[in-house]
């Protein structure tokens, strides 16, 4: 699934950390989309252009359109090649192009943009960019825009990360174990349950993606293995289970408040052999034979 991330479109958030860096995955995905023939734009803010282009072949390097905001982020040199409006202006300019065909925009990195721009402006711009193709009645992939954003999650608090992940269509969290990198992919489709999946991978030196199985054979069960499901009926001093015979007897039991038709007939029908009903009564020592005076048995 890692290789089909870009086919869904929208904002793909790559969350990395210090132990598991995400720039190599970003470059691998960029290379993949360049090989597919899509237009690829890179907004480079965090590393220099040479460092980003390092490791790519020349034909891929020719296909990448690189917007450099690393060398001169505040446009002090005032040259013509600097794009007006900063990174956001560049984003909007990319979207305004009328070239057909899918476009992939790689943001390196979103953390840099979050630190330099207000979060709400960035969210609004990203939303405008990634939903540009949702015109009514036009479902062809012409103009489908995928935005790949690299986010260093340790740099930000839960607020901006939460806001960006609520905007994102796909969220890839990098992790790993024993030297093996894994990507936990959470895919939010608009009106369906989010699906998540963990994919083990490694990046080859030429930045192609190598999907792998997990590092060791042990497979994690979905529930926590330390806590087995608790059966509350064990270790009781009374028995809560029924044997088959007991269960049958219980099912055939007629409760006193249930009025079945047999019971009704039995009650209505006069019992054979008894014209009138007799009450056999043996008085107690405490019993009061005189029905009229209730205080008879008080000894005053």
């Amino acid at each position, binding site marked *: 699934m890692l290789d089909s991330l870009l086919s869904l479109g929208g904002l793909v958030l790559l969350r990395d950390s210090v132990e598991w860096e995400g720039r190599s995955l970003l470059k691998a995905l960029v290379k993949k989309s360049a090989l597919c023939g899509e237009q690829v734009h890179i907004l480079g803010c965090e590393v220099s252009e040479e460092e980003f282009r390092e490791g790519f072949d020349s034909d891929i390097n020719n296909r990448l359109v690189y917007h450099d905001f690393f060398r001169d982020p505040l446009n002090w040199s005032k040259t013509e090649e600097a794009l007006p409006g900063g990174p956001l202006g560049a984003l909007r300019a990319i979207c305004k192009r009328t070239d057909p065909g899918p476009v992939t925009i790689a943001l390196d990195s979103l953390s840099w943009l979050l630190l330099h721009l207000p979060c709400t402006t960035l969210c609004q711009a990203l939303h405008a960019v990634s939903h540009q193709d949702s015109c009514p009645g036009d479902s062809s992939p012409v103009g489908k825009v995928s935005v790949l954003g690299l986010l260093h999650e340790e740099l930000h608090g839960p607020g901006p990360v939460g806001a960006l992940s609520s905007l994102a269509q796909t969220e890839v969290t990098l992790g790993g174990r024993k030297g093996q990198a894994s990507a936990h992919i959470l895919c939010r489709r608009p*009106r369906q349950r989010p699906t998540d999946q963990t994919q083990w991978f490694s990046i080859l030196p030429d930045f192609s993606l190598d999907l792998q199985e997990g590092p060791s054979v042990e497979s994690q069960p979905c529930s926590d293995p330390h806590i087995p499901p608790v059966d509350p009926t064990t270790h009781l001093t009374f028995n809560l289970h029924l044997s088959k015979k007991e269960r049958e007897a219980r099912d055939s039991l007629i409760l006193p408040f249930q009025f079945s038709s047999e019971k009704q007939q039995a009650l209505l029908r006069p019992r054979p052999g008894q014209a009138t009903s007799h009450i056999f009564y043996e008085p107690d020592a405490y019993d009061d034979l005189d029905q009229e005076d209730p205080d008879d048995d008080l000894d005053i």
Partner: protein
Amino acid sequence: MAAVASCGSGAGSTGSAVATASKSNVTSFQKRGPRASGTNDSGPRLVSIAGTRPSVRNGQLLVSTGLPALDQLLGGGLAIGTVLLIEEDKYNIYSPLLFKCFLAEGIVNGHTLLVASAKEDPANILQELPAPLLDDNSKKEFDEDVYNHKTPESNIKMKIAWRYQLLPKMEQIGPVSSRFGHYYDASKRIPQELIEASNWHGFFLPEKISSTLKVEPCSLTPGYIKLLQFIQNIISEEGFDGSNPQKKQRNVLRIGIQNLGSPLWGDDICCAENVSNSHSLTKFLYVLRGLLRTSLSACIITMPTHLIQNKAIIARVTNLSDIVIGLESFIGSERETNPLYKDYHGLIHIRQIPRLNNLICDESDVKDLAFKLKRKLFTIEWVQDNYLRQERNIYPPGFSYLLKQKDSAWGEGSLQHSTFLMSFLAKATAFASRLVRHSEPLKQTGSGRIHQAAGPRLWHDGRRQEAPGLLGIPL
């Protein structure tokens, strides 16, 4: 008649007037105002707008929220002039459904809609509204839904807890015939002609704020200001606040605002904890409520409160809204594996219900409410219903069994380890059954009286009570 005779010598006209008056009425006072002759255009009458009804509790005019189960929980519906705030679930799957049911109810009833969103175009939202379930085929669909979900255990009728079968179900099966609440099919879209026949206004924020304006040092973010102005314009133009005397039938405006407070509206309460402009949203709600209270409108707002970092803002927002409902879905949380919740998709928390012209509010007693989105329908149920269906979880299986059967498990030894509790319960039941008089007069039975009554028997009025009642414990 005496009055006529005494003042008959007076002014003749008044005398004759009095005479005619006294012929028709007993008094000479005549009621001003219209006669109760049933004419439509005279006199005060109840405002009868389609899709509304007065509340039986406090007389407020109510509209349906689109889910009859939710209407029941809120005490009949959403009062006109109030705000229904829905706290979204984490992945925003179920709150859009409630939002759309509210709008679909407006379309079905012919109300005017105002849809505001910063995320989706309102025209697209309206295209995705669920289709209403009509009378004839809804019953069939309900039945097949019920049969599909029957498990073998639920086929056992409740024998011991039989009284619980008489509990009213949380929602009625079938459409409500009074046309107040409708059922919606979440898998089908609303017919296009219904949308075109309806009157709706849309507010899509990226269109209204098309350029990057400088943020003015104002207390409200520009998006909120524009939305409030838009709402105010619609209310005054279409006369929902009574400003233009309407010749035609009065109508209700249903306002729906999606994802309020998210960063797409320009508000950064979701982004940071110490926000520069933390009162923007609360002022918006305050002004919005003022607009609603003076017009015939009802509003639904969905808000991603799980993203708001400052909990004080959530508390303020809750206080400024009228009804607050929180949705908590089980996706991704540890409750998903809890067997108690296995049939449900999430919990509904009713956090606040307003006290409108009342001292008390209609809070329902049931606290554990869960919802599930079946193939077509969104149902809300009490979580314990699951237990009541499997009654052996309440009553241990051997209980009544040991009271009644002769060849019970006593002999076989399986209940020989019965605890004090079990035997105590058995004895308590036997004692209780002696207390209950089965409506027989005292004369017939002699052993029905209790001899161990505590204290002297005192009769209240010195006479014997003829009908002691079911639980005749003398004091």
